[in-house]
């Protein structure tokens, strides 16, 4: 067979074959662009974000325009009054506007959820970052503390704290703190795991070689990178916190009337099982919407932030 010498590499004209305009630029994207793209593509996650935004907006807007409507009794009104634009869910047995009370309860729930999760993220990040960064015996001891907290029956502990201290301090504050100090372990473990990984990574090694101090390395370099799992845990934590508050108030230990909470509205509705069967649905469905919104958003964030999913997305 003839040799292949007739054409040499590079001899061919560059005109046709090397059309680099076709080179695809999909891979040239920053991490956050990618996260955004993955998130926006996830319909459930976007739905969660929209739903949560609507709930947050409602919890701010309606109590604001409603003023005192959420707790003002009006004995000229009652459950038999027809519903109207100003009272879309009617009035309860004390003549209180149910819709505005529900929105006030939602506000309470979201405030508790938000601040409880803030405490969880704060303690979790601090604890996890120190444990993961220092390592060794300190890490070991700190992880044993996590084991102890994890082994405590969380709901009972919160119940005890709220019941015992809630009568002295504002129950809302106690609920927030109680959920916060019992719920930080997952966040701490996630941050620790991230720190163990980052500690050996090139950019931290480089920062150390350049003489950066420990606290500077932790705060400037490692904490931002470890925030992704905390953000996910915190978002999912909102659902837990809101349900916990509702359960406490439902059992009669959390927020007590006249203050409004989704939980104590349920307790109140229980007495009207026969005559007003719909009353237990209003706070219940609101609660479910909050939980769904937070878990959709949290799951969506987790999927979007996970760098391992780059190829599949």
């Amino acid at each position, binding site marked *: 067979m003839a040799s292949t010498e007739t054409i040499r590499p590079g001899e061919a004209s560059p005109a046709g074959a090397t059309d680099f305009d076709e080179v695809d630029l999909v891979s040239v994207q920053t991490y956050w662009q990618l996260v955004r793209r993955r998130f926006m593509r996830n319909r459930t996650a976007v739905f969660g974000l929209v739903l949560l935004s609507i709930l947050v907006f409602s919890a701010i807007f309606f109590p604001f325009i409603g003023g005192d409507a959420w707790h003002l009794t009006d004995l000229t009104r009652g459950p038999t009054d027809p519903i109207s634009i100003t009272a879309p869910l009617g009035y309860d047995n004390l003549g209180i506007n149910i819709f505005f009370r529900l929105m006030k309860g939602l506000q309470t729930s979201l405030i508790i959820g938000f601040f409880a999760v803030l405490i969880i993220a704060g303690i979790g990040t601090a604890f996890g970052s120190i444990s993961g960064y220092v390592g060794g015996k300190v890490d070991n001891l700190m992880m044993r503390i996590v084991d*102890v907290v994890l*082994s405590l*029956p969380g709901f009972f502990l919160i119940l005890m704290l709220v019941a015992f201290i809630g009568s002295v301090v504002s129950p809302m504050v106690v609920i927030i703190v109680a959920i916060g100090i019992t719920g930080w372990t997952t966040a701490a473990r996630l941050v620790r795991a991230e720190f163990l990984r980052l500690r050996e990574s090139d950019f931290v090694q480089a920062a150390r070689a350049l003489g950066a101090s420990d606290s500077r390395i932790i705060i400037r370099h490692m904490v931002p990178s470890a925030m992704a799992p905390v953000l996910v845990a915190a978002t999912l934590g909102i659902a837990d916190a809101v349900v916990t508050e509702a359960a406490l108030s439902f059992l009669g*230990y959390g927020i007590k009337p006249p203050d409004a909470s989704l939980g104590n509205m349920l307790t109140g509705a229980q007495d009207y099982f026969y005559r007003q069967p719909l009353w*237990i649905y209003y*706070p*219940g469905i609101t609660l479910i919407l909050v939980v769904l919104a937070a*878990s959709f958003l949290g799951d969506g964030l987790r999927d979007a932030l996970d760098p391992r999913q780059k190829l599949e997305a």
Partner: protein
Amino acid sequence: MATYFVRRLIQAIPIVIGISVISFLIVYLTPGSPVDKFRTPRVSPEMIQNLIRLYGLDQPLPIQFWNWFTHFWSFPWDNLAWGYSFTDGRPVRDKIFQRIPSTLLLMGTSLVVSVIFAIPIGILQAVKQYSWADRLITTFETIGYAMPTFWLGLILKQFFAVNLKWLPLYGQNSLGKQGDIPDMILHLILPVTTLAVVSIAGWSRYMRASMLEVLRQDYVRTARAKGLSSGRVIGRHALRNALIPIVTLLGLTIPSLLSGAAITETVFSWPGLGWLGVQSVGERDYPVVLAVTMIGGMMVIMGNLLADVLYAVVDPRIHY
């Protein structure tokens, strides 16, 4: 295995101490004193002092802790070991032991029901991933999982007990029918359904995820390449592997059933440990509260240990 078991038990000791300290501190540091409720004009200050001495409340904190702790672990427990209830004066031990069977009955039944439903549902979903059935079930799971147990309990109660009057509203037995098994089963249906709906939603999601993970594995492809039927590939090769994380998770979630049961028990006035705990917190019956908290903590430790043991049983790669 045995040495591993012993080592794990020893490792659990500091955790037990940690739980004890924290539970004790919460009760101790609570504002107000257990004797406050006796402070009425008809009780003299001397009698209050006597009570304080009687309960050992005048001792320094570490001594009080030590007394309580050593008594708590003095096996076999006599009447004194866990103290006496503040509300009715009965030994705490008796109150607790009396409630344990009811809680076990409720938790055990709901666990069995959940697993019986959740595993086939999860398998079906994984095998028919993205089918309309999978999507429909996923929707139900999402809602079921988001549903707070106490709310679901209320709905079920309203519908089946109040409106339809098919099932009893609360309790473990109707009045005067103590120990009547068919009557008890009727009473079990609503609380078990309440607990099961939420856990079926959770378990089947895990099962689906676990099965999907396994179905991607090379050995499943090998099994298919052998010419096995899809029933055999899924029912034998995939299922055995997919169950490994589920069984482990089972051990880990048993303790969380207690707090789930606490709410459900309260909703249905089911005379279990959880309801006792909730009641005692309200009555500030500290000895009972402490005992329930400690038992809750022990259940977590035991659940973890059980998870490890089960893991070794179902996975031949694990040897301790």
